């Protein structure tokens, strides 16, 4: 098995995150891998999905004949609504977020630090067009922030770091990280391993985390 193949796939990371979401949770899923979580709801559980552009009870992409360009999610993809859904305006939608009513938000990231800091909106590069969307509102308002991310960037740089070098999205906001190699908690003492992916050793993981890593 080559290093590239070691660990969990995108689907497996999403499925593993879904396992940690309690029945009945109100969930906001970020763009990218987090969106896959909706495909892996454990048997017997019901999650209700919030999309910050004004829909509680978001359903899967619609059948071609049901597509409505005015029924989209925060990533501007066509979606559906489930029975029991509700539409509302942006202030009500972010009242749900800011007011602590969303139970769990699952986000992708550029960097996450051992103190729970998250950086997922800007590299801070001088020619970048800064664009934040709802990310800062979500991390400040949602009670539990899950991150799904590979341990390394495409260039092989660690994304789990001692302190974020990119501009922050929020301070001390992340609870748990679902990576391709392991599930890792943010604790008062820093990163702590929860569970290793099959075939991954603690030492193999620790080499790919740029901060001290505590054993379970």
């Amino acid at each position: 098995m080559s290093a590239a193949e070691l660990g969990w796939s995108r689907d497996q990371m999403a499925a593993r995150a879904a396992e940690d979401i309690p029945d009945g949770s109100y969930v906001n899923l970020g763009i990218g891998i987090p969106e896959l979580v909706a495909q892996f709801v454990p048997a017997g559980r019901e999650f209700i999905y919030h999309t910050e552009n004004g829909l509680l009870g978001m359903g899967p992409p619609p059948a071609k004949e049901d597509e409505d360009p005015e029924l989209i999610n925060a990533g501007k993809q066509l979606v559906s609504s489930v029975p029991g859904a509700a539409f509302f305006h942006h202030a009500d939608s972010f009242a749900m977020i800011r007011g602590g009513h969303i139970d769990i938000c699952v986000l992708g990231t550029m960097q996450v630090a051992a103190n729970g800091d998250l950086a997922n909106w800007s590299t801070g590069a001088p020619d970048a067009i800064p664009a934040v969307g709802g990310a800062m509102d979500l991390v400040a308002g949602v009670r539990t922030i899950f991150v799904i991310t590979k341990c390394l960037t495409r260039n092989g740089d660690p994304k789990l770091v001692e302190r974020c070098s990119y501009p922050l999205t929020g301070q001390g906001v992340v609870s748990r990280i679902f990576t391709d190699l392991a599930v890792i908690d943010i604790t008062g003492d820093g990163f702590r391993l929860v569970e290793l992916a099959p075939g991954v050793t603690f030492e193999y993981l620790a080499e790919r985390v740029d901060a001290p890593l505590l054993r379970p």
Partner: protein
Amino acid sequence: MIDKTHTSLAGAVSAIPDGAVVMIGGFGEAGSPIELIHALIDHGAKNLTAINNNTGNGDVGLAALIRNGQVRKMICSYPRSSHSRVFPELYRKGEIELELVPQGTLAERIRAGGAGIPAFYTATAVGTPLAEGKEAREFNGRTYLCERGLSADFALVKCAVADRLGNLIFNKTARNFSPLMCMAATTTIVQARRIVAPGDLDPEHIITPGIFVQNVVEVPEPLQESVLIANGEVYP
């Protein structure tokens, strides 16, 4: 499966402890959750802080809860009651505390509490006795007061129709403070005239999305406060 419906009023209010902060929907009798209030009287929790625009009427509902000695403090805009001497008597005897808040400030403080806003500024009450002790600050040459968000442990609310997810619609001016209180309370308990299946309520028409509601009890024929008062009813 998510199912927020309860079959018993007593069960729905049983978790309300002594000392709880309880928001109670309704403006006058419109939207007043009488059955839930009476269940709270039966339950007996004391030392409550109650938040409502008024202090109840006659000897039923909120007025009865106050008369029963369960309310330590009222937060409201208009404590003068019609057909009721309950609050005035306790207040003059110093047996109940009053925090008087202008009606619009009360509504906005409750919304703020539900929306995660700890404080906001309003021009309401500037230069009046209700500004005393409040931070005043100028924006664009006008003076405003800093007002705090208001949250609660529980909200008791009446609506017209609900579903098992807690989505609600209201009837006419019975809506008033209720959607805001649903947002601002940790646990919102709703009495609904009717409970329907998810999807029976048009998602464009839902006033309170279920995320703001924890418990729903069906009360198909709620008591009408004005009728009770006309009949001289006293609870319990």
